């Protein structure tokens, strides 16, 4: 074909054209006839069946719920969204309308973008419904804090990327099997993307499934004691945005003019730069002391400052004070600690109050992470405790949490009170065991603190390497006998003896024979 002469001027449709209105009408048609619309009930149903109940089983803490939501939705939405997008992308070829559509005036990329946008809109509508329910219920249940939007933004960006990748695959490889194949491959790619994470400094934590330190899990202290650090989320949004842009740029590859292809190449190059930068940034991330991934290039130092809060306290002889975000646990924690606190109340060196503190994290070798209370165990007469929920664990019910508080936190309080530790005397251990037994605290866990193979107040968390095995310690026969003898005394007698001899007992100057 040649341009031998200038075009003949025929009646022009240009002046009357309103591209916005036409695009809106086209979008309305695409929205009405979109596979994602039909997948929406399935997607929301799957979310409710697989994810919703698990998310809601977690404590009503914003970070815990938001990060679980991110992980579950990123995994749960991938198959329907990628599948529907690929199905829509391959529609023209499957329905044999390619000739009809090719000869229409609207550019291919503009036409395809409208179809993609409609698919993505429905995916986002489904997502927003799920988000509204989870955040709405959490807002109703949570006693403190507010919604976290960065995890929500990562999910939204994931859906954009899923939709773009699926749509591009369907458009470029149109076949009936493209949709299921791409959906399944994408699912496994996302699910398996976390398998190579080792430690906090891993490129693989860029995976949108990762909502925090993958080895340590979700720390309820985030957004309660310390602000949420969005560094990793920013890198993830950058990656997903880059992937979406690359996939959409690929739509203009076949049957487009040189200019369009050049423009698409520039857009795709920008997307690749975003992806490479995001992955590189994720590789520089480190586990900070508050249990979050900090990326130096993106980090805002303001997020390192603790959040100011007024603790909620019990009105008991020794008040138990918790972060207001954990207020829901106050009655259970107070009831669990009551037997221990009633034993030591009024004694010299007894705590002025029990205060919940943030967890401190330290990356160990390989995938191990050390977690313990931040700061000193005791300061100004206040005993510092961590709730079991603050140590990476599977989510606990309130009853389970109370049981763990009684055994582990109760043990900690007695141990701190009697200055129990490495090198403590048999008499200290005997009295500690007697007090633990009376307070219904597990004696072996109590004694584990006296002969710890790991530092006091730490727990070893590892998904790949086993932690050191702790054999339950045992009292010597003589100490056990003395412990039973001490426990058999009336509490008034015990109390009076402790008032007189506590400082000597703590200093290790009391022998087993001197115990009453």
């Amino acid at each position, binding site marked *: 074909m*040649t*341009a031998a002469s200038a075009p*003949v001027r025929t009646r022009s*449709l240009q002046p009357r054209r309103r591209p916005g*209105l036409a695009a809106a009408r086209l979008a309305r048609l695409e929205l009405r006839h979109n596979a994602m619309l039909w997948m929406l009930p399935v997607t929301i149903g799957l979310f409710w069946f697989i994810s919703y109940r698990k998310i809601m089983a977690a404590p009503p803490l914003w970070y815990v719920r938001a990060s679980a939501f991110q992980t579950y939705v990123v995994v749960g939405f991938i198959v329907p969204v990628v599948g529907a997008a690929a199905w829509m992308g391959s529609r023209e070829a499957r*329905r044999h*309308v390619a000739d009809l559509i090719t000869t229409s*005036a*609207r550019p291919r990329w503009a036409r395809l973008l409208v179809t993609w946008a409609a698919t993505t809109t429905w995916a986002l509508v489904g997502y927003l419904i799920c988000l509204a329910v989870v955040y709405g219920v959490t807002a109703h249940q949570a006693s403190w804090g507010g919604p976290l939007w960065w995890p929500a933004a990562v999910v939204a960006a994931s859906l954009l990327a899923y939709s773009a990748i699926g749509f591009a695959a369907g458009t470029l490889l149109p076949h009936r099997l493209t949709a299921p194949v791409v959906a399944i491959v994408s699912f496994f790619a996302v699910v398996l993307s976390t398998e190579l994470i080792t430690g906090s400094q891993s490129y693989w934590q860029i995976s949108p499934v990762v909502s925090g330190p993958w080895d340590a899990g979700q720390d309820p202290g985030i957004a309660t004691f310390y602000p949420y650090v969005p560094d990793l989320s920013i890198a993830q949004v950058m990656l997903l945005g880059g992937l979406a842009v690359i996939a959409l740029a690929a739509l203009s590859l076949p049957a487009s003019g040189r200019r369009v292809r050049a423009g698409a190449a520039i857009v795709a190059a920008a997307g690749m730069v975003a992806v490479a930068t995001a992955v590189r940034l994720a590789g520089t991330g480190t586990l900070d002391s508050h249990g979050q991934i900090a990326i130096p290039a993106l980090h805002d130092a303001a997020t390192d400052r603790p959040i100011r809060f007024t603790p909620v306290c019990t009105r008991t002889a020794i008040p138990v004070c918790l972060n207001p975000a954990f207020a829901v646990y106050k009655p259970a924690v107070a009831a669990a600690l009551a037997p221990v606190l009633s034993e030591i109340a009024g004694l010299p060196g007894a705590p002025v109050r029990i205060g919940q503190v943030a967890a401190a994290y330290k990356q160990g070798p390989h995938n191990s992470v050390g977690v313990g209370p931040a700061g000193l165990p005791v300061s100004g007469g206040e005993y510092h405790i961590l709730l079991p929920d603050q140590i990476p664990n599977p989510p606990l019910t309130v009853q389970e949490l109370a049981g763990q508080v009684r055994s582990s936190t109760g043990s900690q309080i007695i141990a701190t009170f009697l200055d129990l530790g490495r090198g403590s005397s048999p008499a200290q251990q005997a009295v500690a065991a007697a007090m633990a037994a009376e307070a219904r605290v597990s004696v072996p866990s109590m004694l584990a603190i006296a002969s710890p193979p790991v530092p006091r107040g730490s727990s070893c968390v590892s998904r790949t390497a086993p932690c050191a095995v702790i054999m339950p310690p045992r009292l010597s026969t003589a100490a056990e006998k003395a412990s039973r003898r001490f426990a058999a005394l009336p509490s008034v007698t015990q109390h009076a003896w402790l008032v007189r001899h506590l400082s000597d007992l703590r200093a290790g100057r009391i022998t087993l024979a001197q115990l009453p």
Partner: protein
Amino acid sequence: MNVQICKLTRRFGRALAVTGVDLQVDIGVFGLLGPNGAGKTSLLRMMATAVPPTSGTLRLLGRDPGVQRQRREIRRRLGYLPQHPGYYPGFTVTEFVEYFALLKEMPAARVPGAVATAVKRVGLADSSHARLRTLSGGMLRRAAIAQAIVNEPELLLLDEPTAGLDPEQRATFRALLRELGERATVIVSTHLVEDVGAACNKVALMDRGRIVFHGTPDDLSTRGAGNVIGDSPLERGYSAALAEARS
């Protein structure tokens, strides 16, 4: 001239579908006749800007379809009905026609009226809200014709438009063709000579990628004088012209 073709050739791999075709067509209904595999569809697809020619010159509505901006202008003024148009089964007739009106970049405000008119012209007004999956083959064909004429094209290309239509619908469609041919260039590719006889002012006969006859339907009928193959003068002319070309 709305269509100017000079030495147009199209090759698909080793196969030569269209070989050095010269053709000029202006306003009116133009019939493109020929046996299966003659190259009619390939020629029509090049005129529809669906595929570019391998060589030769093609100008449509005074523009060069090889230049992107001019191609877009051509497509705004083009109506095309492929041999196998395909459809979206979930769309209603109105939605299907509206969809293509919007793809043809018709002014949005004009679209609803134009869609209603096109649907009415093909006799589908009563089924305008029926989903395409519920329509018969003939009704689907008419819906496809409606999308081709919705933008009041200056160049209308129809590939086997009457396939699947019943006799009454074919008669109505021929009347529509004559009406459209008063203002636009309508090129109808068919192997049904009665369609050509009833609606076309000019006709070309293609065989093995070449145009072997170009004239009026009456000219073609005259060619058939004395030929025994065919039931009508036009069919006899068709057979005679083909036989002459192949001899």
